């Protein structure tokens, strides 16, 4: 699973998810992309589950690009613990995804296959998504 190699600070505050994605809003590396339409935390497990779903569906063909990285630690208090006594322990890594972010890109496969693969992947992710192609209209 994806995780930072080392971090300066072990714990972070929750933060806010306002607005839309600052960058990575169009397909750049591949031919087709999976774009987020809502904001949310996508965990490293979800990113990995979606990657496996895509790569198993396209089998040996195509190349997959992952354009999100889980760099935010999420802490959690142990079960049956009273409040207080400091912040909980880091439990998982998440990527903060805002609307418009292209999370996955595929190249070297047909559009139908890419649509099917991304359809499987979107069920693994905690955000609403849509299929996106390269824009050549204007």
């Amino acid at each position, binding site marked *: 699973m994806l995780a930072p*190699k080392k971090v300066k600070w072990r*714990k972070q505050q929750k933060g806010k998810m306002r607005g839309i994605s600052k960058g990575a809003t*169009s397909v750049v590396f591949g031919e087709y992309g999976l*774009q987020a339409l809502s904001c949310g935390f996508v965990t490293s497990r979800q990113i990995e589950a979606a990657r496996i779903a895509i790569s198993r569906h396209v089998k*040996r*063909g195509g190349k997959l690009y992952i354009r999100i990285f889980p760099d935010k630690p999420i802490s959690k208090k142990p079960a049956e613990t009273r409040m207080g006594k400091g912040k909980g322990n880091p439990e*998982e890594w998440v990527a903060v995804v805002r*609307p418009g972010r292209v999370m996955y890109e595929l190249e070297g496969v047909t559009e139908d296959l890419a649509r099917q693969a991304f359809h499987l992947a979107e069920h693994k992710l905690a955000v609403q998504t849509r299929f996106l192609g390269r824009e*050549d209209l204007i």
Partner: protein
Amino acid sequence: MDFAKVSVELRTQSGKGPARRNRAAGKVPGVLYGHKAAPVSVTLDPAALIRSLDKDKKRNTVFALTLGGKEAPEQITAMIRDVQIHPISRRVVHIDFIRVSLDEEIKVTVPLHLTGTAVGVTNGGNLHQGWHAVPIAAKPAAIPNKIEIDITNLDVGDALHVSDLKLPVGVRLLLEGKEAIASVVAPRAEKEAEVVVAEGAVAAEGAAAPAEGAAAAAAGGDKAAAGAAAPAKKDDKKGK
């Protein structure tokens, strides 16, 4: 040479307030610059612009912009330099036009199309396209709709480079010849991919904070389960 005709209006107000009012009215703000002339703020109808685009040239269409009202219209030859598109609605938000002269070269990007099916792909390889559009310099009339390259003879491990492109007359490529355009690479087996992920996971457990935290949490959970009552009493006393 045929030009796409679009009429644009002068825009006197700038800033996000007037720009939003323009968009609400179905117009799009834009700017026209280049050729050492002062930049001009304009508004235009995006639907009319998209209708007038050349179907083959698309973004590289040369426009004859009619600037100003009915009283003193000014004809300007221009091309699209940049288009801002809203990430979610995918509507045009802002357009940059650049003045062009038909006698001078202009830098544009032209789509690169790979034709044929590579031998390497039929043998099980994956096609990787490094450049989907290539930057060129050409006079407006000489800009090609697309650049095609045949990849039929490309086998696994082979690559086509920029130096292999055959360009039309009057077109100059703005890339170095050794840049790879397309290559066929051997597919990675699923087992291999799983091994790579497993190695990454081990490394993460050694280094990353949540992995340590998870272990600590698990240990803490066991302790809590073993002696749940006693710590609870201590907490109560401290609370009082």
